């Protein structure tokens, strides 16, 4: 579900923007400015920091053929304007094709549901490599 190449193991970024640019940098085939603009525009309408130190920023990307997920872990936590006001430690960026497919919503809901689990969040924080992190999301 998440390629180990699409994981930032321990981000040092100091802001929402910093976190997102580290994640977007892992996607060399995409226009980084465009992704940033779309994701930030969505964030402005309402933060995707859903509490428990988790954020799920997302956007529709023109030209994409299938969903892309990037994961970032931040040990100290970073301010993401989350609904509970707490710093965010785990960020999952979800980019989906720009069509009306309801599957995107299911994917987002599935990720949000999965991250409700405190056990999973602890395992993610304890993982020692990107491969180990990716393995937690194997279907």
């Amino acid at each position: 579900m998440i390629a180990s190449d699409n994981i930032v193991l321990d981000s040092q970024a100091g802001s929402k923007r910093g976190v997102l640019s580290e994640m977007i940098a892992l996607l060399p085939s995409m226009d980084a400015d465009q992704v940033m603009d779309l994701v930030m525009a969505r964030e402005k309408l309402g933060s995707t920091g859903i509490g428990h130190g988790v954020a799920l920023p997302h956007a529709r990307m023109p030209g994409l053929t299938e969903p892309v997920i990037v994961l970032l872990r931040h040990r100290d936590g970073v301010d993401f304007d989350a609904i509970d006001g707490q710093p965010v430690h785990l960020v999952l960026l979800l980019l989906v094709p720009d069509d009306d497919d309801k599957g995107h919503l299911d994917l987002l809901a599935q990720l949000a549901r999965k991250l409700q689990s405190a056990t999973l969040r602890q395992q993610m924080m304890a993982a020692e490599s990107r491969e180990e992190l990716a393995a937690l999301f194997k279907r």
Partner: protein
Amino acid sequence: MNIVILGAGEVGYNIADRLAVEGNDVSVVDISEDRLQRVADNMDVKTVLGNAAHPSVLQQAGAADAELLIAATQNDEVNMLACQVAHSLFHVTTKMARIRERDYVNQADKLFGRDELPIDLVISPEKEAALAVVRRFRVSSAVDMQEFAGGHISLVGVRVPPKSDLVGMAVGDLNEVVPASLPINIVAHEHNGGWKVPGANSVLLAGDTIYAALDRKDIDRFMAVVGLDQCKQTGRNVMLIGGGHVGYEVALELQRLGAHIKVIEHNPDRCQWLAEHLKEAMVIQGDAMDKSLLEEEAIAQMDDFMALTNDDEVNILSSLISRQYKVPHTVTLINRDVYSGLVRAIGLSNIVSPRFTTAASILRHVRRGRVFGLSTLGDGSLEVLEAEAMQTSRITDAPLAAINFPESTIIGAIVRGDAVIIPDGATQVQAGDHVVLITQQRHLSMVERLFEVNLEFF
């Protein structure tokens, strides 16, 4: 949110203060150590000394992490260049610049944009103040008039006259004097200097100031119900003190509206310039505090008196002089915060403050959700928010009576398509509606949560 503010003058200072109080990470850049010290002494922000357009200064201010840059130095060119540097080197998401020079502002469409100068919002405090003054002119028997939802909705502020039918009425009983065909909502009430959002039991007394939310086309009928006559719109005699940026903008617009204008300006060179650029106004060189000059220029025959100089003291004193001559309608421009409370106490109720209008128009871009308007009412403690209700936002969940609003919060009006709805508890907001809501400043962040979209919103 990480925010960089360039310039610690009146505008920069006040915006920094508001944003810092709301818990944002703010840094303020200025070239004056004194101005920065004033900022550092009064608020919890980072300060950086230096030229606001220099890459190293912007870096030090944290531009690399910033979502918003507000360039509000005194210098248009520094502001524009700073936005370019912030964009090219630091990829700051949103950039706003204060630009005063008309020569630039008139070309805004072509100059600013993603592929031109990367400025998302041009801020012109003088232009905004001028617009506010002209709105006061258009509804001169009101103390204030603000427009929302593309002009569909008006918020009209009036002082209740002694013989008005409204005197002694509770807000909840207004249907006894206001016909059902004139839907209004009283959204703010001032009594003895204190402003609040009224409840059904609030009783209106002579001399109180109230704001009503209504359909714009109902303004004249509302004024008649209150017992205030609308002045004639054309051919009014206006004395305008100060021909600076604001004065000139106002004079241009009033000229267009067919007013007879006398501009009093002390600087001879500026007078020359004004005389060349204002074809139909009479430009007089002189001192606005010179009573004999004002008498010579027939102050007693004026319908409107507008004190719009850069100098608050001159504006306040000349406004008081105009009251002596019983000019029916006076507008006073106040730049500095310390005066705004004071002037109401000495009876000048029609105040325009560029600081308030500018801060509000910037802050609306900081709010989450799709916010189209933000402004202050009365002494600044009440705020008006115009926002679009979006799919999944909580405001659309249930009829208004069942939604958990913060205290002292009222929905003034809703625009759905082209229709204005003056809501009651049974009204349910729909996605796509523009909602005009009044609340206390301290509840604003709770209110904006109602308009935020849910996680599932793509």
